[in-house]
């Protein structure tokens, strides 16, 4: 099916939900590399102003999808529209409306930060009178304005990533694509990158589309699509995804753990056990449960901690494996497929 006909078809039959306002519209998107099916028919919309995350193990098809949306590779089936333009037939229009931050740095290390920014402004045709004020605005946003004269080679990994985010914003894109924006950075720098991304959402009316395989980072998104083996397994808000897991984890420290475990079984029909030196059990709506626990347990409680199910639990619920196992599977599968492909030659 060609991209053009499918786009017309969708317009005529009306997509599942009204998508006039959606900044990213994806229907039946596929990408095959010979035998390897990297993306096998995915559908989703991303609304204007949303922070949308693609979560999944390496090799799940996240980067392939983002590359198609950024017009870097052509889909082999289905279609996608970004900022109202088809990614296959109107690539330049899409590119003018998106900002890109890749996994690997794409800065010229010999040039200064400012020269990198200017180069980008010129390539994207930013009106001359706006180049300087806009550059100052976005570089201040990432805290690099004072360092604009320094050669990029002298920057740390985190600074480079911030500069790339600023550069991606230089031409006021409607969608900013971040492919693994924090990969390879230390935890502190990762946290600071996220602070900048959140601040950016306040300053600019922009849609952010990102991929990550860090569960904790995905929670910064308004909605998350979990991808595995080229398909979207589930798509919802982080809260909804986690509440679908059902149970929160409650840990209590008591004066008499055995009595507490017995009381839990008796009063609440909950099977608890000792884990990490505390009485541990799972319960739906853990925070609402705590007051009842204090009122009815009958054993003195010294401390309580309630933890939400993590996206790791979500991933486990929907795929039956942890994200780390899935990554190993994907790697071996890919090698097997490639080995087969080479064997046939």
């Amino acid at each position, binding site marked *: 099916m060609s991209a053009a006909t499918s786009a017309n078809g969708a317009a005529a039959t009306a997509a599942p939900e009204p998508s006039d306002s959606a900044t990213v519209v994806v229907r039946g998107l596929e990408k095959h590399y010979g035998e390897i099916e990297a993306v096998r028919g995915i559908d989703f919309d991303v*609304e*204007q*102003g*949303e*922070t949308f995350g693609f979560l999944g193990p390496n090799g799940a098809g996240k980067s392939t999808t983002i590359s198609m949306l*950024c*017009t*870097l*590779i*052509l889909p082999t089936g289905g279609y996608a529209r970004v900022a109202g333009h088809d990614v296959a037939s109107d690539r*330049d*229009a899409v*590119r*003018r*409306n998106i900002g*890109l931050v*890749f996994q*690997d*740095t*794409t*800065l*010229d*290390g*010999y*040039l200064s930060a400012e*020269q990198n920014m*200017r*180069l*980008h402004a*010129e*390539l*994207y*045709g*930013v*009106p001359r009178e*706006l180049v300087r*004020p*806009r550059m100052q*605005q976005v570089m201040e*946003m990432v805290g690099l304005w004072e360092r604009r004269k320094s050669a990029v080679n002298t920057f740390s990994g985190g600074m480079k990533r911030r500069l790339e985010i600023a550069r991606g914003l*230089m*031409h*006021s894109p409607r969608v900013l694509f971040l492919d693994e924006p924090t990969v390879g950075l230390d935890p502190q720098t990762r946290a600071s990158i996220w602070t900048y991304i*959140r601040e950016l*959402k*306040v*300053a*600019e*009316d*922009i849609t952010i589309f990102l991929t990550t395989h860090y569960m904790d980072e995905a*929670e*910064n*998104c*308004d*909605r998350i699509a979990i991808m595995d083996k080229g398909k979207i397994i589930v798509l919802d*808000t*982080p*809260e909804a995804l986690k509440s679908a897991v059902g149970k929160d984890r409650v840990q209590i420290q008591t004066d008499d753990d055995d009595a507490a475990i017995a009381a839990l079984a008796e009063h609440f029909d909950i099977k608890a056990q000792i884990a990490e030196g505390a009485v541990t059990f799972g319960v739906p709506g853990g925070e609402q449960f705590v007051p009842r626990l204090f009122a009815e347990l009958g054993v003195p409680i010294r401390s309580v901690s309630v933890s939400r199910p993590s996206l790791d639990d979500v991933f486990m619920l929907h795929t039956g494996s942890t994200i780390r196992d899935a990554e190993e599977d994907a790697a071996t599968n890919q090698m097997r497929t490639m080995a087969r492909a080479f064997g046939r030659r």
Partner: protein
Amino acid sequence: MASTTAPSGRATPPPSLTHQIAAVRVPRSSIRSELRAVKIVWQRELIRFTKDRLRIITSLVQPFLFLFVLGTGLSRLASAGTHGVNLRTFVYPGVLCMAVMFIAIFSAASIVWDREFGFLREMMVAPVRRSSLVIGKCLGGATVAAFEGVILICLAGLVGVPYAPILLLEIFGLQLLVAFSITAFGVMAAARVKQMQSFMALTQMIILPMYFLSGALFPVSGLPQWLAILNRLDPLTYAVDPMRRAVFAHLRISPLARHILDPGVTWFGWHLPGLFEAGVVALLGLLMLGIAIFEFSRIE
């Protein structure tokens, strides 16, 4: 955690920051925007060149070796054959070509680096034509190389070539042409060759034979058949020959020396006019530029 400022997922209009500056609207592509792209790619070459002082100096070493060490040393052997003309003067036009060749190929090689360091991607995803990027790159390489050429032009007096304005202009024009064509060749190769080692090996394999076959170091008449054929097939021949003619036109030497040292390139006995030769170089340069544009347009 979801953005605290925008619980609905919609960013609230930025109170101070965004109203301060009208959002940038990127215009549709036009000749103007393409020219801006050409200009900035060209400028980047110049910025990078001026920041790399070491390269400015090291790239002069080879021409100096050929001109002063080889030129001086061999002149003791060759004095009988040069009919009173200094060997340094004879090899000067060839060295002028060589200097810009090496700089130009180095400029093109930076594409391979750009690919390895990822910067190429930043350019490739920009909403401009690939041809603008390739043309900017070739013009940048040509400019940088010609700058180096100017340094060698300044040495003319040391090898007995007069500083005649017309001559200097002719030399400069030919150097620009060689530099542009060689950069185009390098860019064309860089589209396919993705590793620096391979690129350097490939260009060394092509550039050095081109230089030796071109007649930069010997007169092109009375050569053995096989060498004459190779010489006529070498594109650089058509840059060195007009360069030498321009230089020799301003020398006061005996007709015999002129006849032997500056015989001119012939095709089956037809003496090629200098302008025609320059045209050959330009045509080849444009052809390679075309192939380079085609190759880069195909890359996703």
